[in-house]
């Protein structure tokens, strides 16, 4: 369906409710609608048209239109179109209708908006605080423009209540925020009856740094470096999504060679990340030999990154309008040799681990995420693909290079640790093959265009397939090449609630394994 057809269909059904339609760029369709009709419209789009809610955010536009605005982004993953509903909220009113009852994926976004903007979702099934812990005073709404970035409010003392499971023999296990392993902080509250987990509530946002607020009013260039530091091992893909958004606003088509170089780095990042996950899965079932194999290969992948750009985490590669240097030129032969070495080692290691029945026994049927829950919560990336949902930004919103290169989305349906592992194994091969193909067909030429000025108050989405899944950034520019609003939605934000469902019924000692197979970023969620 094209954007025009989607618009026509919505006007046929909801003609009276749509105030304004704007088609921005190739694939973004913005509809401003009446605030009291959002529930019906979003329900129709989600259920009848089958478009998942991929991002939702508020924006303080009181200085522009005298209102707050809430945006609901739905994705047509078949034809690659984003359909965005926008409602305006009067500053006297400060409430909006919750759609969480109809569109389940909206629940966490609405709680986030409530915390950061003080806009109340009316009718939300459980609107407890999400971003702010008990130490934040109520009435702290940092993303309102009137809030001073540097203002650090006094510490409050409010008790956070977790969902309680009450029955004979049910007890709670609190874990975190400082964990036993070398990982990020988060608090997990398990309700268990003996070994099996009945309920898991994850309290996150321990590493909330206020990134979205930090970017407001800053130069476009500085925000690129902030984007690289959203989530440690997703530096490249986050910067990539940010650059895409700005380039879209500037109306710039980056040179083909730059696009190819970006694809090489994006796939290198995926390979590195997946090798780490596979090593982690092996560590968590105490399979030391295989873990060392994967860590060794990961070390090699870091070596490639170091050789190409001097940064193990691929920071400082992207720039607005292309890439900083021609990182690949002259290094093709060495790159191909190292990738082939990883590939053959990976093949042999895969044979070894799959022949180990003790190992397969631990991962098979552990931590099953059902396809229905995955769809309802808009789970993305390898966990969704392992549950039978075929979503991949590289296929649904491809850039020129991915359109030319041939690759297939891995198909698995059981949704357990084994399937997630297999998706990652297949994607490792795919990443290597894509890199080899990209190096092979990379045209010569320029590696960047320059962006001098960007028009104020323009907005666009940037989308990439991060190692963890669909990554969506929305940028609205301000005066003098600054950022007015930067909404970051990383794949981890969508997958955290899915993880909490996947562990139900499993044993507590299997939680680290299930957690590792999802490999979610805390920093990417907490921002």
């Amino acid at each position: 369906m094209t954007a025009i057809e989607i618009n026509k269909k919505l006007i046929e059904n909801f003609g009276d409710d749509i105030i304004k339609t704007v088609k921005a760029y190739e694939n973004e369709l913005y509809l401003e609608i009446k605030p009291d009709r959002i529930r019906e419209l979003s329900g129709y789009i989600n259920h009848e048209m089958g478009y998942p809610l991929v991002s939702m955010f508020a924006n303080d536009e009181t200085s522009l239109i005298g209102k707050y605005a809430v945006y609901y982004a739905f994705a047509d993953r078949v034809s690659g179109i984003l359909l965005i509903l926008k409602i305006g909220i009067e500053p006297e009113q400060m409430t909006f209708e919750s759609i969480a009852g109809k569109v389940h994926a909206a629940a966490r976004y609405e709680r986030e908006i409530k915390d950061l903007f003080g806009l109340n979702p009316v009718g939300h099934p459980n609107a407890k605080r999400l971003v702010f812990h008990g130490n934040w005073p109520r009435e702290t709404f940092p993303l309102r423009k009137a809030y001073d970035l540097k203002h650090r409010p006094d510490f409050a003392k409010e008790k956070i209540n977790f969902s309680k499971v009450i029955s004979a023999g049910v007890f709670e296990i609190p874990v975190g925020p400082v964990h036993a392993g070398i990982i990020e902080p988060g608090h997990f509250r398990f309700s268990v009856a003996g070994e099996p987990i009945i309920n898991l509530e994850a309290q996150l946002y321990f590493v909330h740094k206020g990134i979205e607020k930090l970017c407001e009013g800053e130069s476009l260039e500085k925000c690129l470096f902030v984007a690289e530091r959203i989530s440690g091992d997703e530096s490249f893909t986050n910067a990539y999504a940010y650059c895409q958004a700005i380039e879209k606003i500037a109306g710039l088509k980056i040179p083909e060679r730059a696009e190819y170089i970006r694809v090489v780095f994006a796939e290198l990042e995926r390979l590195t990340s997946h090798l780490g996950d596979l090593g982690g899965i092996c560590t968590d079932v105490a399979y030391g030999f295989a873990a060392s194999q994967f860590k060794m290969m990961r070390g090699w992948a870091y070596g490639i990154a170091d050789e190409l750009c001097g940064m193990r985490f691929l920071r400082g590669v992207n720039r607005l309008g292309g890439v900083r240097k021609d990182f690949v030129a002259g290094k093709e032969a060495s790159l191909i040799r190292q990738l082939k070495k990883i590939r053959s080692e990976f093949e042999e290691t895969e044979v070894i681990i799959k022949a180990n029945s003790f190992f397969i026994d631990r991962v098979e049927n552990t931590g099953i995420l059902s396809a229905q829950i995955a769809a309802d919560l808009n789970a993305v990336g390898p966990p969704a693909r392992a549950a039978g949902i075929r979503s991949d930004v590289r296929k649904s919103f491809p850039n020129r290079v991915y359109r030319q290169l041939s690759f297939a989305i891995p198909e698995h349906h059981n949704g357990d640790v084994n399937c997630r592992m297999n998706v990652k194994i297949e994607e490792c091969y795919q990443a290597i093959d894509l890199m080899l193909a990209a190096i092979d067909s990379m045209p010569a030429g320029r590696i960047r265009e320059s962006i001098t000025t960007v028009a104020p108050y323009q907005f666009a989405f940037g989308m990439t397939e991060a190692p963890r899944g669909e990554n969506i950034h929305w940028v609205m520019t301000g005066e003098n090449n600054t950022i007015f609003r930067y909404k970051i939605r990383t794949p981890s934000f969508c997958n955290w609630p899915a993880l909490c469902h996947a562990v139900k019924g499993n044993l507590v000692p299997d939680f680290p394994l299930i957690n590792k197979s999802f490999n979610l970023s805390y920093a990417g969620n907490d921002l």
Partner: protein
Amino acid sequence: MFNTIKKIIKYPNLTQNYPRKALLSLPKTGKTVIDMKKCTGCGECLGRCPSQAIVRDAQTKVLGINLDTCVFCTLCEEICPSGAIAMTNQFELAEEKRTALRSSTLVIAEDQEIVMPYEAICAELVKRIRKTFGRSLNIREVDAGSCNGCDYEINAMNNPFNDVERLGMHFVASPRHADMLLVTGTATRNMQLALIKTYNATPDPKLVVAVGACACSGGIFRDSYATSNGIDNIVPVDVYIPGCPPRPQAIIYGILKAIEKL
């Protein structure tokens, strides 16, 4: 099983002999140096440095870099019109005093937290620790609000290439078992209490090492409503390891510096 043994024989030892021997291939993004002879004073780097790590002395007009704030993005090297700025491959940058990481000719007086009385206490502590720990060191890692980059590099210290257990360093699961806290991140507001509790749970004598630009100074995330400008606002720090993120060998160097075995 045969395949497993084959692999074990094929890769008997991957571990680099750092720090006994220098690294064979040095990284390309280490400390940044400014050649003041070439500098024209245009101020391009000052305005565009994403973490405002480059500073100019008001009187002498000399430029300097605060390594505790630098995120090693290499932008200054790229944009300097006179080519006065260059990245070196020097990565062993850890220092015991934050002032040592900052350009001496600069306005340091603004950062009051550097001259706090705990410095004196720490100096005494370090003396005792050398006596106490002997050759083995138990480390507890605390992520107090990083992007996870530093944590990945700390993880990489345990990979086959670095294998820090050979140096007598051991990562433990609880602060109760630890001699040293390796802290990453800016100490976000939501992690401050957890960091203090972890610090208090670690038995004396203890060392605290700040890993990465965020832990040293707040890095690119400082001055936000939800962060603090470096973990030394919350707990005393013995060694600062700059970098964004510092590579595993740089962290090893910092830890060794902390126990004064170098």
